[in-house]
């Protein structure tokens, strides 16, 4: 069972923070198909938030097919987000380590690497999105 937290300084709406925490848990394998999410009442009480906020988060996850509500029982995880992403990570990580070593040899400091990755990431993903939109 996971325990939810709310970040008072976050820009994200409370219900979205709950959604993201469930997804994070699914990605890292912390929660798996069949696991039960905390009861709405318990989340509302422990975080002192509106029960409707918790319901909204669970409905959002349900609409994405990640969880299912069983009336009178609770909300259960249907599928995981870990699968292919986790499997592909080892390979990608090896390539990244090799690349980082080359960057270091070429004289790049840690901050240079971070800046290069961030700008390249932004440019690449943005281009991909634009292409998808045109297609």
């Amino acid at each position, binding site marked *: 069972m996971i325990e939810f937290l709310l970040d008072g300084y976050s820009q994200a709406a409370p219900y979205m923070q709950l959604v993201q925490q469930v997804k994070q848990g699914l990605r890292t394998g912390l929660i798996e198909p069949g696991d039960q999410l905390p009861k709405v009442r318990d989340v*509302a009480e422990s975080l002192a938030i509106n029960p409707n*906020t918790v319901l909204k988060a669970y409905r959002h996850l349900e609409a994405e097919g990640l969880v299912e509500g069983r009336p009178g029982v609770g909300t259960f995880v249907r599928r995981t987000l870990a699968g292919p992403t986790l499997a592909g990570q080892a390979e990608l990580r090896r390539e990244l380590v090799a690349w980082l070593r080359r960057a270091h040899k070429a004289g790049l400091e840690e901050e240079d690497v971070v800046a290069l990755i961030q700008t390249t990431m932004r440019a690449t993903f943005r281009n991909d999105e634009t292409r998808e939109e045109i297609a």
Partner: protein
Amino acid sequence: MSMALEAHGLGKRYRRNWALRDCSLHLPAGRIAALVGPNGAGKSTLLNMAVGLLRPTEGTLRVLGQSPGGNRDLMDRIGFVAQDTPLYPDFTATELITMGAKLNRRWDTSLARERVERLGIPLDRRTGELSGGQRAQVALALALAKRPELLLLDEPVASLDPLARREFMQVLMGSVADGETTVLLSSHLLGDLERVCDYLIVLQAAHVQLLGGVDELVSEHKTLVGPRRERASIAGVSEIVRESHTDKQTTLLVRTDGPILDPAWSVHDVTLEDLVLAYLAYPAPGRAILGVAQ
């Protein structure tokens, strides 16, 4: 959709002063509503009329579909915690629960005892000797013992320290999740209620300034920043709530009724707090009508 509370042209006058005037509002059943406004805005007056302790001077008020004055059946269905959670200080929690059982037709004694015990509050100590937070919890347990359809709380956490505030809200939210209770809580600070409310009523100077579901209100309002421009009509804007100008720039907080397409304006989201502060700082007497029409 059924309404837990509905007022039309509601007003209350004390001698010469109007504590509440032209108050038209509705609160859909099942919501947790914040009644926000500075001290003296009319919050307590509205709550006291809703529970039949005060009679309106003018206008109509329906609570759970009925008129509250001298209506015993209706009072069975309403829970009320008055400002500063008053309890008889010489009575213990057990005695207050017994008294509640004698005075109310609808009453769950074991539920009340269980709530008080679960919080570790001594049932046999005079409530005058309990801490402020514990007294507030006892008052809440008493109000919840009626299993009310509508629960009204007047500044329930104003006098509590931050830890007691949180504990009070935890118990309240947990209890609300168990049933279909509609809740109306008043506060002069939005911060106390921001995480719990999904409906908002802003009162200022005896008038309703803002009314509606929190999600709808937040998405309807935007901050616009652009080159300096004197008051002009902007497509997509239904009302300018607040405006400020420098020699080059104009900043507006607006209510929208469509997308803002004019590229001269950059459009930013607002927080609930921005919104409430803007309406409190720039009150307009005609606004109630806008809210009700939504």
